[in-house]
């Protein structure tokens, strides 16, 4: 059975809008954020995302795992690009060293060296602001949108009946997959299987993950087959369908959509005029050797 995200009715800024309006605003937010690498501009989007997160009505304990995952994910990749210097090389041509740390040993003639530059530092902060803004706004959606309205929301956004229902099922597939994975993990642990003891080379490790990967995949496939049977047996897809739930835009929904469109248009204009590109503050450059 398809399970849903932990939705419930809350005193929430997201739930105060029509779900279609919020999805459209979200897409506008996403597009606008992607125009910029300047931390000053990104700070606006980060602030907006923080505001929405605090007004989402979702308690920390409800989303603790999701937040920790996002924080860990963003920090890991920011640190990785900071340490390697890769990732931002298309945004800046030259680097200004703040510090150069050299290891006291060498490996086959290569001396590990860590360059801390003004550009890498700013790139790491910009990336944290950019990715975490998008991640925050994204992760709030499944906790805030009523699963019973997924299909009619996508239909209302102009998708066909079949695509809208497919997107509805896809939204619910993710938590269902998580539940199936946990059940499979439990079943294999009860047979003495320990994931942290999977050793060996890459191929060997992949092979030893089979007790988890195969049942979860097969379950997902057979589950899909059941869903298709259940839909076929109740005449899905034979023609246009009625959607029992109705959504109605209010003035504030139109205002939100207008704000979103304005935000994209402004972002696009600024980007075309050359604003919002990667920025390194002067004081940081002054600190450089």
């Amino acid at each position, binding site marked *: 059975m398809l399970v849903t995200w932990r939705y419930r009715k809350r005193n929430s800024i997201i739930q105060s809008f029509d779900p279609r309006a919020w999805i459209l605003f979200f897409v506008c937010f996403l597009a606008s954020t992607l125009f910029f690498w300047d931390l000053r501009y990104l700070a606006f989007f980060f602030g907006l995302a923080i505001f929405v997160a605090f007004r989402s009505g979702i308690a920390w304990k409800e989303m603790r795992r999701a937040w920790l995952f996002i924080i860990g994910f963003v920090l890991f990749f920011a640190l990785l690009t900071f340490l390697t210097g890769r990732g931002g090389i298309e945004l800046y041509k030259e680097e200004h060293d703040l510090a150069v740390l050299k290891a006291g040993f060498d490996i086959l003639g290569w001396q590990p060296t860590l360059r801390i530059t003004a550009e890498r530092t700013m790139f790491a902060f910009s990336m944290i602001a950019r990715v975490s803004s998008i991640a925050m706004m994204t992760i709030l959606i499944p906790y805030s949108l009523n699963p019973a309205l997924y299909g009619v929301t996508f239909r209302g956004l102009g998708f066909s009946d079949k695509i809208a229902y497919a997107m509805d099922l896809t939204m619910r597939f993710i938590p269902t997959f998580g539940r199936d994975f946990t059940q499979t993990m439990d079943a294999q642990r009860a*047979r003495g299987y320990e994931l942290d003891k999977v050793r060996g080379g890459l191929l060997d490790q992949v092979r030893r993950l089979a007790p988890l990967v195969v049942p979860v995949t097969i*379950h997902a496939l057979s589950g899909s087959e059941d869903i298709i049977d259940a839909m076929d047996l109740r005449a899905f897809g034979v023609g246009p369908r009625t959607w029992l739930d109705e959504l109605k835009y209010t003035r504030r929904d139109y205002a939100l959509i207008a704000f979103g469109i304005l935000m994209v248009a402004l972002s696009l204009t600024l980007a075309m005029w050359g604003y919002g590109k990667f920025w390194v503050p002067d004081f940081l450059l002054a600190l450089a050797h």
Partner: protein
Amino acid sequence: MASHPKEERMSTTPPLLIENLSFRYRSRSELALKNINLRVEAGQVLLIAGASGCGKTTLARCINGLIPRSYKGELTGRILIQGQDIRAISLARISQLIGTVLQDPERQILGTKVLNEVAFGLENLQLSRKEILQRVDAALERLKISHLRERETFHLSGGEKQKVALAGVLAMQPSLLMLDEPLASLDPASAQETLDIVRQLADEGMTILLIEHRVEDVLRIAPEQTIYMTGGEIRYFGPTAGLEEAVDYSEIKLPAEKIIQRAARTRPTPPPPPRLTGRSTTSSRPLVRFENVSFGYETERSVLQGINLSIHPGEIVAILGPNGAGKTTLVKHAIGLLKPKSGKVWIDEQDTHSLSVAQIAGQLGYVFQSPSHMLFAPTVREELSFGPTNLNHKPEAIAQQVQEALQIVNMSGMENIAPLSLSFGQQKRVSIAAILAMRSRILVMDEPTAGQDYRNYMQFMDAIMQMPNFDAILFITHDVDMAVIYATRVLLVNNGQIVADGSPAEVLSDFDRLRANRVVPTSLLLANLQRRGQLQSFKRAEELALETTH
């Protein structure tokens, strides 16, 4: 007064007529159905029984049009629904003529809310919102579940899900209703309620096809006709009364008194008594001990409350109780998959907090309810070797353990078959064998007989009880007869608490308490209780027959 020609035609056209139907799946060489002929009249219940893999589900797929539309293969013969050949009409039309409730309501329910679920088919028929709401409310009212209308489907109990799935089908107003093993995952009271609804619908004029292993339960609603299938063929088709004589009572579960009558004539060899019986020593050190255990998945709602329980060597414990009572949560604590929020669970006097699941698995083998969550290996042999290999058993010992486990579940010779290509019933037996091969001291089984045919599960339960390595066996079941036949101790669980704990005679003789906990006395239980004065312990029907003839 002369009847209208259309009315005359309607009265003579059977709701379902099947002529010379054969089918072979595209991927298989052998026929799944062979020359099926049947005719069902309006207002009748047709019971379709047979062992796992006999072709029942394939027949259902042919009738509801999934064959050949979704499942490809070679189909010959014809199926007429209300006189219309189903190959000539659209699936949308078929879905209005035949309503199908799949085996597991969990796999059929698509809507997140009851209202949306019941409305799904009507939305697809593009009815107006007003008509959809009228029909949804009528279907919910008919099944007396109007109070569930705004509830989320995920949080419904097993019985409620079954009724909601049925409401979704009834709302489409079919003339023929087909239910594929609707009782498989239901507690006895929910199963009884579902059957009462089926009878009521038939009495109102609907034609019902009921595919079910739990024949004894279905006989209670007196189906007009019965089919018994083996190997894709009909072995018996006729009035239900004739089934009891036409079929061997070891193949399907008949009422106890019928078995007693027939066994008294044939005098079968009695099965060996469970090996563990008589070794029960409650004074000895407990193998598993729950000490004031409470648990909840979410802080607001507790699933287990203050459980105190000790399992001693030699005990065979049956755990009964309604869907959602906390039975599975209870046994998951024994293997350490769940840790108590308060209190402690001890395995062999070691706190499960200090043990990994893998460490506990060496002592306690746990058969999950669903086999599909564990099967992964390319062959049955590798599947069964997985557990003992993880537990570092020696290769030569593993080979022997695998063979013995296969013998117990009646699957010898299937070592090289891919488990995932087997039927559900066979997969379930592989999952049981996979745990048996681990040679744990304690065996825990969650619904071992669900979805299994009678002959198979009786055979493997008998064989498991004979295994020398188990110090104790626990099983969760909705089948009261499993508790009657095999258990030395019965736990009745409800609302996260143990509401009764004692010998089968003590727990199962209090009918008021059983009914309050959605357990329904069976004919075998009644037969045992009637002979209580003559018996030392509960016995199966064949043994009762022998006792009677002595």
